[in-house]
């Protein structure tokens, strides 16, 4: 696992692109504090995994930081009240999703007091049980803050046969426009490192690598200045999108590739986002659950740009209006960055744990997409693909719905980073094709499983029916035999009682043998008979 290599050595990844960074406009100012809004809307599902289950009732008064919904299972995170107030509804509300769908939310009308409930800091986390500490992090509702939102505690429980040797802290922030992590590092590097300390204590890795692109030397310096005697390595590497993808960052820092379909833990690696480390520090050291986050507000449609610490559940509308946003029906509002973010259908949707950026561009800044031209197989997409796929082949197979070819060309390894679409001279929305094909493949796989289930159910039923039929036949045969025996008895009259009794016994035994035989055949046969059935 610990291949001998130079300290701080980095590897290059295949492909990648250099889009305009557009990061300066939201940097340079301290992190702002967004006001507590009159109403907070908290979707029960804010991360990967099962939605949380509400544990408050409408009408109930809640305090800031109070648990309002519990985790439903292992891969699920709980939810807390971001401010004090009254729960007014638990109902479907529009959420931030590319489909514009609604989902169950807890609605809280804030009382303006912003009064904290009980906070539960752990004075010395090295003194508590490992499981207790992990549970504490789970109960704080922390999910990956980089955008994907994977429940953090799950990653802290690696299988026993896969010891963690390397902890990687992802401070890459490779998407254009987004500066939330950057701003956080500049202001709170010490807090972040305390969070890393907690992770280090839990995972006991041999080395801790903090990776970031070389376009933020001030952030690297801030981290190094706060390191003191910690043995963590702050590693800078050339700026290139998408270096911040988990798989890409692992290759850059270790030279190893996460096996397809596997997890970083297969390589002895755990990767956590820098914002997640900060949330862990707040949870463990300050006893505060995850109820706010740093979000980048950027784009030329805003009057004031920058990073703001905002309560979860604040609607985008409220937040952006405070920054001078005046939308028109042709406005685009993107949650996330310009490469992987998605447009929301309405701004009346709440900020969630994964909202790292709100990008409100003008039409000049991000013009509407051009009409797609024919693919000329120029191969620029293959040059740009960080997963070494052949995007143009995937495109042709997607159009032709050749699912076997799509699987043979490893469409499942596509991370949807958008580098191919970015470079495509024919302006083909490639990623959209892959998303559609992946969804189709998933559906087919589910169909296949369903079909397999019903086939098994059918065969089982068939077998059961036939067994019942055979049993009936056997009983019939036994009855016949018994009747024959009785007739024979009658015929024989009463010359020899003993003899007749013996005959009766004989017949009974024969009938039993016939029954047993029938049963035996019944067990041996069904597969065969079912084949015929299916064949018909």
């Amino acid at each position: 696992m610990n291949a001998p290599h130079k300290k701080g050595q980095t590897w290059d990844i295949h492909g990648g692109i250099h889009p305009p960074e557009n990061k300066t406009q939201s940097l340079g100012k301290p992190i702002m504090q967004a006001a507590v809004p009159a109403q907070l809307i908290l979707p029960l599902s804010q991360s990967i995994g099962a939605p949380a289950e509400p544990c408050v009732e409408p009408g109930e008064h809640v305090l800031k930081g109070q648990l309002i919904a519990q985790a439903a299972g292992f891969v699920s995170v709980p939810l807390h009240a971001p401010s004090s107030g009254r729960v007014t509804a638990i109902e479907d509300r529009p959420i931030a999703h590319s489909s514009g769908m609604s989902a169950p939310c807890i609605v809280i009308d804030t009382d303006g007091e912003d009064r904290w409930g009980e906070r539960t800091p752990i004075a010395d986390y090295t003194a508590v049980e490992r499981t207790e500490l992990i549970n504490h992090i789970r109960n704080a509702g922390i999910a990956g803050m980089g955008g994907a939102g994977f429940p953090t505690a799950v990653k802290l429980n690696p299988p026993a046969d896969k010891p963690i040797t390397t902890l990687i802290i992802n401070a890459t922030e490779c998407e254009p426009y987004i500066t939330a992590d950057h701003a956080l590092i500049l202001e709170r590097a010490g807090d972040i490192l305390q969070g890393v300390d907690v992770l280090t204590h839990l995972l006991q890795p041999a080395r801790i690598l903090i990776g970031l692109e070389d376009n933020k030397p001030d952030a690297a310096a801030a981290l190094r200045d706060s390191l003191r005697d910690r043995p963590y390595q702050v590693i800078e590497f050339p700026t290139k999108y998408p270096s911040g993808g988990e798989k890409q960052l692992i290759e850059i820092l270790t030279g190893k590739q996460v096996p397809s379909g596997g997890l970083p833990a297969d390589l002895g690696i755990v990767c956590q986002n820098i914002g997640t480390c900060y949330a862990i520090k707040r949870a463990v050291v300050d006893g505060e659950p995850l109820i706010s986050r740093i979000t980048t507000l950027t784009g030329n449609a805003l009057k004031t740009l920058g990073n703001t610490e905002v309560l979860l559940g604040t609607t985008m509308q409220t937040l952006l209006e405070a920054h001078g946003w005046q939308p028109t029906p042709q406005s685009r509002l993107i949650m996330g960055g310009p490469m992987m973010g998605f447009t929301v259908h309405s701004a009346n949707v709440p900020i969630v744990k994964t909202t790292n950026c709100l990008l409100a561009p003008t039409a000049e800044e991000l013009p509407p997409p051009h009409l797609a031209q024919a693919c000329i197989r120029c191969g620029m997409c293959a040059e740009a693909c960080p997963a070494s796929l052949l995007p143009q082949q995937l495109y042709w197979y997607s159009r032709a719905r050749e699912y076997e070819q799509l699987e043979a060309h490893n469409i499942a390894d596509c991370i949807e980073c958008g580098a191919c679409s970015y470079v495509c001279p024919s302006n083909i929305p490639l990623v959209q094709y892959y998303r559609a094909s992946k969804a189709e493949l998933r559906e087919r796989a589910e169909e296949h499983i369903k079909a397999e289930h019903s086939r098994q159910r059918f065969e089982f039923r068939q077998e059961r029916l036939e067994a019942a039929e055979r049993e009936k036949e056997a009983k019939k045969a036994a009855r016949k035999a018994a009747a024959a025996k009785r007739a024979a008895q009658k015929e024989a009259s009463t010359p020899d009682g003993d003899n007749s009794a013996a005959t009766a016994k004989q017949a009974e035994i024969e009938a039993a043998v016939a029954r047993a035989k029938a049963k035996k055949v019944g067990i041996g046969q069904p597969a065969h008979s079912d084949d015929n059935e299916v064949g018909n």
Partner: protein
Amino acid sequence: MALLHVTSPHMSRAGDTGSVMRHVLLALIPGIVVMTALFGWGTIVNIIWACLLALGMEAMVMRLRKRPPMFYLRDCSALVTAVLLAVALPPYAPWWLVVVGIGFSILVAKHLYGGMGYNPFNPAMVGYVVLLISFPVEMTQWAAPAGSIPDQAPTLGPLSALAASFPFLSSTPVDAFTMATPLDVFKQNDSLMVDELFASSPQFGRFGGYGWEWVNIAFLLGGAYLLYKRIFTWHAPISMLAALALMALIFNDSGSSASGGSPAFHLFTGATMLGAFFIVTDPVSSAVSNIGRLYYGAGIGVLIYLIRSFGNYPDAVAFAVLLMNFAAPLIDHYTQPRTYGHKDHKSHNEDRGPK
């Protein structure tokens, strides 16, 4: 309020297919200038006539297919096909030769196969080969390069060139001074040592065909520009040139009368550089991965040499390219790059498993 809904990514690099094609056209200019200087205005007449025909036919097909013609004409792909075929044709080619060639390129090779992006064969090369096989006399009448014969008349100017291609426009017939191409002469030679041949025939220059050396250098310059602009990767053209040079090296035998010609001769004579940087690099009809393009280019290089030396035709770029166009899907099948997180290159067959 409903906001604009667009899928990611929301940024894209400036430029479109049209700009790629315009770079290619730009890169062809040095070669065209040198050809005009050597052979007179016949090349220019070919190009203009071919472009008019190609645009007209493309627009017509688009109208027939009920697509907006201007949107498709803007991608300039028809112009690239037209110019490539035009520079491959002999200067002062009769007007109808260009009509037949462009007709086959645009109508048959491109649009009957599904249009832009779908054609398995390079359209310009299909047009060229159809002409070469159907009209061998007209296709092998190459003008003598200026200065190759000491007391030769000057090359034709624009008007005479026009009259040479469109004889019905002029009352007096105009004929360009033609002679065999260097590859032709080299092929026919079986008695002279290579040195003697170079000394005795006006077709030869310092190491390649007279004048053709400059044509090739000019196309090489254009190719270098496209490489610099990252219009294509180096894999296919460099692989083709290397394979051709290697074959020439193997069969060179230090210049006897049976020599196949030196690597420099093959690299800088005929359509080598035009083929390497403007035909082999046509992405639509080539292999798709970089490794695949290495094989694809190498195959073309080897075939060019084999056909030039042992085949019936003096030059061979068109045939070699078309043959490898056939092979491109096969190459793609076996040269899928290793995807991130996979152990090795996966062949499709292994992947499918038993049915």
